[in-house]
């Protein structure tokens, strides 16, 4: 079982290493969306600090959706997805492996870039630290729930836009708890409650979404 999971992880990471351009697009998108906000609302440091957490979280969410539409699509095209589904291991494990791989490829770079953007938005070091914690707990949710959307929209016309439409509403709790945590530390009300709720939501997503995504994948392959 763990060998299968490792094989999926190793494969997706190798493929990502061979095609660096693909996942770097999502990261540049993240940086760009975040950088457009100061241009839109003006450069006052206080205001930027107020909207910073929300903007960074929304940008991270959109960037994750951008990369998620490809989660199963490439493998579907060359037939390897069928081979993986027909392996002796349960499809849930496959979906879990692909979601973890997505998080490693997409979530970790977001964690690395976010502090730099935090500085641009005039966030304090405390706020940046909490932002990192919230993204650490929150980005796996994006990969897990996004896996459901990617499986549901597999092979459909305009699948990428549809994926966004389906999954964004489900991201709302992650966005609220995640951005709220940073807000909490900035306004002095504390971030612990937000972070624990975010963690609980992450655990719940981890327990439920691979099953639904696996069922959706089988439906889409039929």
């Amino acid at each position, binding site marked *: *079982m763990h*060998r*299968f999971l*490792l*094989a*999926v992880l*190793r*494969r997706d990471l*190798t*493929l990502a290493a*061979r*095609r660096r351009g693909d996942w770097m697009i999502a990261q540049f998108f993240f940086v760009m969306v975040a950088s457009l906000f100061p241009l839109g609302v003006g450069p006052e440091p206080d205001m930027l600090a107020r909207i910073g957490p929300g903007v960074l979280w929304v940008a991270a969410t959109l960037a994750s959706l951008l990369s998620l539409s490809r989660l199963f699509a490439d493998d579907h*095209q*060359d*037939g*390897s997805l*069928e*081979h*993986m*589904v*027909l*392996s*002796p*291991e*349960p499809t849930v494990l496959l979906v879990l492996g692909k979601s973890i791989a997505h998080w490693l490829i997409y979530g970790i770079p977001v964690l690395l870039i976010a502090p730099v953007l935090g500085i641009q938005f005039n966030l304090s070091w405390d706020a940046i630290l909490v932002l990192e914690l919230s993204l650490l707990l929150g980005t796996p949710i994006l990969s897990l729930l996004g896996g459901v959307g990617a499986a549901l929209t597999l092979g459909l016309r305009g699948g990428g836009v549809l994926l966004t439409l389906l999954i964004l509403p489900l991201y709302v709790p992650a966005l609220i708890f995640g951005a709220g945590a940073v807000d909490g530390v900035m306004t002095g009300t504390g971030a612990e409650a937000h972070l624990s709720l975010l963690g609980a939501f992450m655990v719940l997503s981890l327990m439920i979404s691979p099953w639904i995504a696996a069922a959706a994948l089988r439906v889409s*392959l*039929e």
Partner: protein
Amino acid sequence: MPDALLSVHDLACARGERLLFKDMNFSLAAGELLLVQGGNGQGKTSLLRLLTGLARPEAGEVRWRGEAIRDVNERYHEEMCYLGHANGVKDDLDPLENLRFADGLHGRAFDAARAVATLRRLGLSRCLDLPCRVLSFGQRRRVALAALLLAGSTLWILDEPLTGLDVHAVALMEGLIRDHLQAGGMVVATTHQALNLEGVKVQRLLVGSVAIPELV
């Protein structure tokens, strides 16, 4: 028939609103080849996908060793290997990496020497460390066949295995199928081309709305 490993009972298949076939029955024992024949769009591929368990039948069921494949999904997939229209070969990986992943999928440790030997046997000795992107279609097909051989499954389900293969490769493929059957394996295949399979037990199955599916 006690030795029928794969059997199909009153199988019906619909695509969209069209009923492709119904009341299909057949069984396949060790050492037998089932050639699925029929025109384009008559449901050959659909039948194969039902047999793999990828698609679910409209009615009836597919059984492996007497049990419905839906109930023994994982055990069945250990003994079955499917090669569809698409090769399932990743373009960005070289043939060996592809085979390594195929082994990982089945939870086996990767045996590099064996993989290299298999690729050599299929005439890919010069492509071992090239990304599959630069290989020709026939060569990629052969990488997929290497994965099939290494999987060591009892039942092969092959959808048009000869497409894109040259004369040598077709002969090679015929040899592989014959060896597999003689070793007690089973093959279900669709093909447009004639296969030279002397000394092999062949069942033919015609799929299509025109003729009633029955064993010829």
